[in-house]
């Protein structure tokens, strides 16, 4: 019976279509998708750079501005002749689909087919760690511009990878540092935690609780609340938090769960009664959720342009970006970190006096580079950039059509203040590579 029904449906579809028309339109659609996927460098001995970013899947939303802006930064470098003034940069973009298998496949293809000497990317840490295996084996530079698991530079360390954002451990510790300041300033005494009930959620919550107890011994944890991954109804948790009347709520909530929670908590009026610090709010979210984002919550950011407006490099990024895409668009955290990564490559080549990946890798080890967040050094033992974390209260200002972090109360936590204390500790974590 099932066969007959489906056969009937298909024959109906077929009858309503002109076969020749279908073939022609399919072919046209196929050809239209074959758009060029590289930014050409012109003549000369080129230096090929692969950019592995998700344009489909969970991370696609955060790839838009890096993909728009990277060719502009490459063009700036190429105006000077390219790396060392004689090696124009050629960018090759690939979609990782936010899947590790796709990421490693694309990394291999970039190395073997396009002969790239460096890979920038990617968004997901799991994909970045998959790519690390391929770059290490092929001795290719890898600039992890935005993926920020601490494992990238610790447990899964390879000397070919450089991390440009604060890693996950640094971010957690930065939240505690910022919280200490806020607790003292606001006289907070008790708090509640709400976390995703799986390993990451429990780990993030326990690190925060332990570190906060050390930093602010007087603070009291009233209750730990846990929700299942992929929760769609947060109302019982929101009611429970409100009933406990804490001064603030710490959330170990990520991705889609965080978005759902924010919407429901705002509708229930939670943020009018309880402060909610520490949520990751990149500029992308500040722009996209400008109407719905609750004001007054305290967010964490990795590379906000509005906190670095006095930096000439950030000024240049904004100008370059807005000259091309209009003054109502701004480079987000992700774009800025990718721009830093490409400029870092340029500076690395200058320091090495060579474009050989091995020479650049050696030159950048422990080196200090100019970034849009100031002059920052790579940590000698794991290539982690001394990248600051930014914690601040979400407020409206007359300067932008979207909320930013309140410049008056913004806390900037230096990377070197919150990374693992000693290089011996880091080296203990780093695995041996054959």
């Amino acid at each position: 019976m099932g066969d007959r029904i489906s056969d009937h449906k298909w024959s109906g579809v077929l009858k309503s279509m002109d076969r020749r028309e279908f073939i022609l339109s399919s072919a046209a659609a196929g050809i239209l998708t074959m758009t060029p996927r590289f930014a050409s460098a012109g003549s000369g001995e080129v230096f090929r750079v692969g950019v592995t970013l998700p344009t489909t899947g969970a991370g696609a939303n955060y790839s838009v501005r890096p993909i728009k802006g990277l060719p502009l930064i490459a063009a700036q470098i190429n105006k000077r002749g390219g790396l060392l003034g004689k090696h124009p940069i050629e960018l090759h973009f690939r979609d990782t689909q936010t899947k590790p298998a796709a990421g490693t496949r694309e990394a291999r293809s970039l190395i073997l087919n396009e002969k790239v000497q460096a890979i920038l990317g990617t968004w997901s840490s799991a994909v970045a760690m998959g790519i690390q295996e391929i770059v290490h084996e092929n001795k290719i530079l890898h600039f992890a511009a935005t993926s920020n698991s601490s494992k990238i530079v610790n447990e899964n360390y390879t000397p070919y990878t450089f991390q440009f954002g604060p890693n996950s451990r640094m971010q957690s510790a930065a939240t505690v540092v910022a919280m200490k300041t806020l607790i003292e300033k606001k006289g907070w005494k008790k708090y509640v935690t709400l976390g995703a009930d799986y390993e990451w959620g429990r780990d993030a919550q326990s690190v925060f609780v332990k570190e906060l107890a050390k930093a602010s011994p007087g603070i009291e944890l009233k209750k730990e609340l846990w929700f299942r991954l992929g929760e769609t109804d947060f109302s019982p948790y929101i009611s429970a938090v409100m009933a406990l009347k804490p001064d603030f709520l710490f959330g170990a909530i990520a991705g889609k769960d965080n978005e759902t929670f924010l919407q429901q908590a705002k509708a229930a009026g939670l943020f009018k009664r309880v402060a909610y610090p520490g949520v990751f709010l990149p500029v992308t979210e500040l722009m996209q959720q400008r109407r719905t984002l609750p004001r007054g919550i305290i967010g964490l950011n990795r590379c906000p342009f509005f906190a670095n407006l006095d930096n000439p490099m950030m000024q240049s990024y904004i100008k370059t970006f807005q000259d091309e895409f209009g003054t109502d668009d701004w480079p987000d955290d992700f774009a800025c970190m990718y721009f830093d990564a490409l400029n870092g490559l340029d500076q690395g080549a200058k320091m090495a006096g060579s474009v050989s990946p091995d020479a650049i890798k050696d030159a950048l080890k422990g080196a200090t580079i100019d970034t849009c967040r100031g002059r920052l050094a790579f940590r000698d033992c794991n290539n982690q950039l001394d990248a600051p974390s930014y914690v601040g209260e979400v407020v409206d200002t007359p300067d932008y059509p979207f909320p930013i972090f309140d410049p008056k109360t913004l806390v900037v936590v230096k990377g070197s203040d919150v990374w693992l204390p000693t290089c011996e500790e880091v080296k203990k974590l780093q695995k041996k590579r054959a």
Partner: protein
Amino acid sequence: MAMPAPAKETTAKPPGQPDLSLCVGLFLAPAFFLVPLLPGEYPVYVATEILILGLFAMSFNLIYGYMGQISFGHAAYFGLGAYATALLMQYLQQETGAVGYFGFFLSMLIAVPVSALGALIIGFFIVRLTGIYFAMLSLAFGELLFYIVFSWYSFTKGDDGIQGLLPPAFFRDVYNFYYFTLIVVACALLVMWRISRSPFGYTLRMLRENAQRAAFVGINVRLTMLVNFVLAGAFAGLAGSLWGPFQRSVSPALLGWHESGLAIFMSLIGGAGYFIGPVVGSIVYTGLYAYVTRFTDYWPLTIGVIILAVVLFAPGGLLSLLDNALRRLREKRDGDGERRERKP
């Protein structure tokens, strides 16, 4: 309710008629053997992936093409195999970060019983149902396993996955690993071929065509389905065991429904009614993916158009086009012969 599964070559052929799968297989075998002669290493990587995913799709087709049930959670066994190998390889890694030959083979071998055991436990519940209920239950169990692997950080490393799965020095060479994969996959296909031509294989076809009648003649339907489910899980696990050392890493996505969809796509593209169909599907899917994504970001659109075209114009898969063309040729030849005989 049985799911519609195309039945062409899986039924008995008239005597003297060549077996299309055998012919295609005999053509593909030397072609695969000669892939390393192509310039560069990239085609060898692509061919390795074709073989691994082809074996995975073939294992799925034991359930779909032969038994007439569709599993939306078949990647669970592929992923179980990949994780079993990855975890054991990681456990056996030496101070240098490499694994020895014994450890490498042991890690791969363990994947088969682990996946088979997983399929046995899950299959025990699933084979009680057929049709859409079978499909939905397989999806539910698949997603359950995915979430266990995704969430169990202390054991599976959660959503970060496991990296650094470096095989021993000999197999780090892409050509050596390719020939190793070719041998493993060829052996697995021979065993599957034998199974498909055995009384057990014909019993599966009978279940697909009419399970009630099969039960009436004394066949234990559930047990037969369960045995086949376990076999399919074991072969998927074997494919999974090759994946980790090939990609040097595994991630929970390997157990997800997207990965299960790959096996379905490959079987549909190649032809689920043909023994070798899923391998042909893997050649088309993986081969196109490897080269199309160099030129466009719109891979999902590209593969969508291809699948639409196959479903509309070759619902039996690409091999059915070849099969139909050969049949027309034979009919024409037989017709010509008859006409010649009729002439005085």
